[in-house]
């Protein structure tokens, strides 16, 4: 898989799912509506940068807190193809894998990226290039790789339940 785009940097470490998607909107069910509330408690202007050619770049322990899938559903609804970060909270990372959003725990690549940096991810070559600087993609457990190859937990389970 090759993904290319411009970096949308979410500044700071420990950015939690409550600021990204406040609890008051948890009764929303349509991802197209969830989109409009993403980053509401943090920096709503970040939404203007999201799209199919934006790669979200994060700090350490991104997505800590609540298991609310709304955050990842909203990112997917914005058609964000990939997320690269210094590190991720466990449930957040699971949600990305499950919903087919490519996620890379690559601290050096994340540190190298600035707002608007050009990022090119080549999973076959195992490489993330940030403004031309190359970094290795992190190793991934077998089952996670299988889930990612299937496009997420929904198609994977569909296949198994058949």
């Amino acid at each position, binding site marked *: 898989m090759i993904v290319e785009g411009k970096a949308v940097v979410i500044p700071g470490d*420990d950015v*939690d799912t*409550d*600021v990204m998607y*406040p*609890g*008051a909107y*948890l*009764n*929303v*069910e349509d991802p197209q509506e969830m989109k409009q509330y993403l980053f509401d*408690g*943090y920096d709503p202007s970040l939404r203007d940068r999201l799209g199919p050619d934006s790669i979200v770049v994060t700090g*350490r*322990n991104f997505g*800590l*807190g*609540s*298991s*609310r*899938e709304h955050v*990842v*559903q909203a990112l997917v609804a914005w058609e964000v193809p990939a997320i690269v970060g210094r*590190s991720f*909270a*466990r*449930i957040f990372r*699971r*949600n990305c894998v*499950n*919903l087919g959003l490519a996620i890379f725990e690559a601290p050096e690549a994340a540190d190298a990226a600035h707002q608007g940096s050009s990022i090119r991810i080549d999973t076959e070559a195992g490489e993330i290039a940030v403004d031309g600087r190359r970094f290795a993609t992190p190793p991934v*457990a077998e*089952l*996670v790789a299988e*889930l990612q190859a299937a496009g*997420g*937990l*929904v198609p994977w*389970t*569909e296949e*198994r*339940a*058949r």
Partner: protein
Amino acid sequence: MVRCDVVMANDVSGPIAFRAMEKMGVERVFDPERVVMVADHFAPAKDARSAELQRRLKEWSHEQGVTFYDQGRGGIEHTLLCEEGWIRPGMVIAGGDSHTCTYGALGAFGTGLGSTDIAACLALGEFWQAVPSTIRVELTGEKQPFVTGKDVILAVIGELGVGGATNAVLEFVGEGARALSVDERLAVSNMAVEAGAETGLFPPDDTVIDYLRDRKSRVQGTVPRELGSDEDAVFTQTLEIDLDRLPPLVALPHLPGNVVPIAEATGAKVDQVYIGNCSNGTMTDLRQTAEVLRGRKVHPGCRAIVVPATQRIYREAMREGLLDLFVEAGASVSTPTCGACFGGHMGVLAAGERAVATTNRNFRGRMGSPDAEVCLANAYVAAAAAVAGELVHPADVLAGAPA
């Protein structure tokens, strides 16, 4: 893949999971006897939209033949599942809520998952999971007055940081761990996720066996599993907390790991006190609150909201006269609900307001406005703040004569 003994979801995570299960092409749950749905987040329904979610939760549960706890018959999911006998030592519980780690208090591997994970659990009875590492937390010595399980876990999060236990399990051992009641263990395990942990385990002992003795087990045929770490287990980290020297603590805004002793936080004005939630809405917490509020009044500049975690606790508190005592003191008492804990309803904060809450998260905007502040503390500290209208050591409030 890991087999689940119980799968649980609520009015927020459930309906999204049901839709994902449909997309997976699966019509029936793997085993209706092992599935529980709880309406607690926006219950009693805050608006028509929330009512719709709860209606779907109820209808889906009836269609699938799974257990459903509606308002008036349940309460906050984690406290409820423990007291209703759904949790036994050695079980694996997949919950569509990050605080599913609470079940570690009873020696079970409870872990929080997102809705799509829950959909797969409903469909197949399994979730994907790597073997976590273990961080051992040894509790030595004896708790001092006004110190509770809440302070133990705040100390751990303060030490490890909010991501320090990612991909790990916390295991609580030592004389200090064994001396904690089940209610206090619930508070400790509940916040394991605030350090990033998958769960927070207490090896089951007589305290747990006693707690379970009068509870009918709701699930038969649990897969037997090893309880507690082996003799030769390897720990990635060992932490020692000396209870003899642990003061009441406060987590200051806006991270649960931003922990200081109460002495360093006194004097800050408090607009609202919130006593409740899945970590600290138990009888133990309500009794601690009552110790402070008995014969005293909530400060005129402050409001206090008390939320018993479940109907059973609500009723027991009523029988003990605690609810009357709270109302007499000028606090409002709510029906069991997640309510304002997650900023949903029933007591959210305005910009510029500060709350002291016995809840588990003080992220920016967690309880309402992003410009409000939440301080996390135990029930003694929260109740004392309600009386003083500011953060204060509970001993100072109790030293003053009741009004």
